């Protein structure tokens, strides 16, 4: 299997470092949380994509938004950089975390009666709603203009992290880590959904996220 170009792309821009990261950590390992572009996503939510023909012997692969093909990622990711530059002014691009489930769990989902399955799909279906995020620098970290962005409800914190880092790329030395905090209190896990953070921690209509190049709240 050939290497996914998305990975190398994200490695160079040191994608989604956890805020909990130690700065000494090698950034290339850090950025290995793969993401897939929204355009790669076809098909419904819970459809498992079986890895080989040995159906129930293998685990199924799926993204949060559905299955996708690897070929598509490769062909589309080449022009990704330009796209991002164009559209990222106020709107943060979608990138879903991939997940993989065990055979036992996938068999169980497959055997659900259609009505129940629809129900489960409906609950876990990513909503198209967008939320507002206000980004504030801490200390000497450069600020962003504009500093208010829209992001899809179901995006993981890692996407936001990657986005801010990309925006700051010019003003920060290469390889700088970035830590992000919610309400100046805690660093959310990279796989946490921003919409859920918004639901619980938003002040007014905005989720206030602060970012810093050093650990700010030990």
């Amino acid at each position: 299997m050939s290497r996914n170009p998305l990975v190398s792309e994200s490695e160079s821009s040191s994608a989604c470092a956890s805020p909990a990261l130690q700065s000494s950590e090698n950034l290339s390992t850090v950025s290995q949380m793969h993401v897939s572009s929204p355009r790669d996503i076809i098909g419904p939510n819970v459809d498992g994509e079986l890895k080989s023909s040995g159906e129930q012997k293998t685990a199924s692969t799926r993204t949060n938004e559905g299955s996708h093909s690897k070929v598509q990622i490769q062909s589309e990711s080449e022009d990704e950089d330009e796209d991002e530059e164009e559209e990222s002014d106020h709107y943060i691009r979608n990138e879903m975390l991939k997940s993989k489930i065990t055979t036992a769990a996938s068999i169980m989902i497959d055997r659900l009666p259609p009505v129940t399955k629809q129900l489960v799909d409906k609950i876990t279906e990513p909503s198209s709603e967008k939320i507002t995020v206000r980004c504030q620098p801490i200390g000497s970290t450069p600020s962003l203009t504009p500093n208010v962005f829209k992001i899809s409800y179901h995006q993981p914190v890692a996407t936001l992290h990657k986005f801010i880092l990309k925006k700051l790329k010019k003003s920060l030395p290469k390889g700088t880590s970035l830590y992000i905090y919610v309400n100046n209190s805690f660093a959310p896990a990279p796989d946490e959904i921003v919409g859920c953070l918004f639901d619980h921690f938003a002040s007014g209509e905005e989720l206030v996220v602060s970012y810093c190049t050093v650990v700010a709240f030990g």
Partner: protein
Amino acid sequence: MSEIARKVWEGSINCIVSYRGTECYLRVFRNSYFPLYFQLLSSYFNDEVSFLYTEDDVPVAWNKPIGVLYDLMQGTSPWRLSCGTKADEYPEYILPLTDVESYWCNQMKEACYIHNGNSKQMMSLSRDDSLTFWHSVVTHNQTTWFRMFAKLHLQFKRIPIRLYLNDSKLDKVVQWHGQTLGEAMCELIPELFDMKRWRNNDQVSVVLHGVEPPLQCPVDDLYRECVYVDGFLHLCVIVKPNLSDAESKAEGES
């Protein structure tokens, strides 16, 4: 400390971890993190372990308590796992392994924020206290952990819950007004927990530490007894195919 809290804390899972034909029999605590065992495994296999995966090649996330992973992934007993080392390609489905201590600390701060509306108590712990707190996680010392946990002065206005539905994570917070688990579930996922429709249906179950707590349990009692090491109550909602339906269908066909 109650009997229940003690038993929950001591809940453990038997694992057989294999690496290049060598097997390691390991008993891990449900209420702990896998990376805390990596050092032990690394010295046993004489190689640097950086992730684990299951028999069917699914990488095991490091950032959820082991018990949650086991319940979600429907692990077997013993749970057969294999090791990946630094030399192997790190799986793309799980978060890159980072410092577990700061990850845990931030989860605890988040839990603290949900309870109290700020994380001051967690942030104002003295250096020694924070170290003792983290050390109690590493050594799995319940008495110390609960002593430190009590120092956070949680107000129980809201209960931090992480909810998982089959595989997907739905973060939820319960506003606590003496709610029972059943009521909370009706509020959180009304689609599945409409009491009228699902009352006599065993398709949906809520699993906590591998057991199904009765839906009449008050949520805050559950939290006090069964809180996970990161200050959250991780509830796995498992939707099972209705076996009696499937059986009757099979009978009908035969």
